[in-house]
């Protein structure tokens, strides 16, 4: 009896947990192409043409600009979902953060432009909002293919081919001042630590040292889209239709 009740409780907990998960639309893995439509919202030739356009655009300018159509973001607010998705896909080049994604969510009737940090000066929110208004006007008129195609062209026209400057890195934090005895202790410990490292190094197999980290920017020709390591910070604009 006791065991059975416990088991039922466990089942209920699992059930509730699964239901809660179902309401949240998971962040999708990085798309393989520049233009992706998982909602069947656009005509396939439109998607193919935009994909070729965006792929060529990256080849020429280096900017990674994506189009992603998904049915819905579920219970997650649009902006929250898109900024996390952008971070997962790493759109734009590392350090330059010069990526941009145009998201369309037909079930939610939402459109969002998510702008990488490095493009915030070139595509400021007011400009992104104007592009979004142009897109939503055409979506309201029932012309999804034209809306998205001309929206992408407007975005590419705004960014142009110029390379953006690096994101200004925040000022380095001032180092804290240590009190005399602590500093002396640190010096002594450092010397000991260096000695310790030498001992450890001498005992380590050599090959374990040169492990190159980080997933680079895959440059194989004919391949699909692969994120370059860019980030966004919530810049851009959202619209609904």
């Amino acid at each position, binding site marked *: 009896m006791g065991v059975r009740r416990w088991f039922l409780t466990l089942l209920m907990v699992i059930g509730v947990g699964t239901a809660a998960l179902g309401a949240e639309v998971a962040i999708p893995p990085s798309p393989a192409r520049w233009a992706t439509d998982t909602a069947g919202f656009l005509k396939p030739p439109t998607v193919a043409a935009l994909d070729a356009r965006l792929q060529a655009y990256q080849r020429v300018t280096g900017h990674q600009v994506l189009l992603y159509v998904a049915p819905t973001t579920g219970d997650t*607010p649009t*902006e*929250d979902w898109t*900024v996390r998705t952008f971070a997962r896909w790493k759109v734009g080049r590392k350090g330059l953060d010069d990526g941009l994604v145009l998201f369309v969510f037909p079930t939610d009737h939402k459109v969002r432009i998510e702008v990488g940090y490095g493009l915030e000066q070139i595509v*400021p*929110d*007011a400009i*992104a*909002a*104007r592009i979004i208004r142009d897109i939503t006007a055409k979506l309201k008129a029932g012309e999804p293919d034209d809306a998205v195609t001309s929206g992408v062209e407007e975005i590419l026209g705004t960014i142009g081919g110029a390379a953006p400057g690096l994101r200004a*890195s*925040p*000022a380095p*934090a*001032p180092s*804290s*001042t*240590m*009190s005399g005895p*602590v500093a002396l202790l*640190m010096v*002594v*410990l*450092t010397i*000991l*630590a260096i*000695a*310790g*490292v030498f*001992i450890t190094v001498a005992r380590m197999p050599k090959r374990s040292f040169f492990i190159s980290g980080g997933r680079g920017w895959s440059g194989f020709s004919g391949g699909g889209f692969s994120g370059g390591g860019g980030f966004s*910070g*919530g*810049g*851009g*604009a*959202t619209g609904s239709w």
Partner: protein
Amino acid sequence: MNRGLIALGGLVVVVVVVGMWLAGTYNRLVTLDQGVQSQWAQVESVYQRRADLIPNLVSTVKGAANFEKSTYVAVAEARARVGQLTVGAGVPNDPAAFAKFSAAQDGLSSALSHLLAVVENYPALKATQNFADLQAQLEGTENRIAVERMRFNLAAQTFNTTRDSFPTVIVAPLFGARFTEKAYFKSAAGSETAPTVKF
């Protein structure tokens, strides 16, 4: 003689091991602290960005006929309080300064959202290009604030978890005030999930 040498050798080994551990702990905390500091700089910069939009917003709504004066005066006052805040890398280490910062910024958020709700009654103002652009900038900035606050909380949480784990928690206070626990933004403000400004 021989026994003394062994004892000395044992002592040296212990000191070296402890020293390595301390240096490693210190360096790990420095790295995490730098992460918190740079994320804090991001938070301050997006809040500054919002504060910079206020004068333009206030003068725009002032220009509209018969606009409710109390609403934009409240925004200007909240903006002034934000301007007096202590800023800098030390804020996350000082719970009192952090709470003050957070409260003043939340005050500006609510004054702003009230003003933007009132704007709904002025369709002529809403329809101008100038206001539409301002609205887009404010929405974008609120969204950036939500993102950078969330990332700050993550960085602070990573730091605090390491700092408060045993045995690091014992030695962390030796390294100075920089390695005190970091303060968090409270989710009660509601700005973690979505832009609070609705138009």
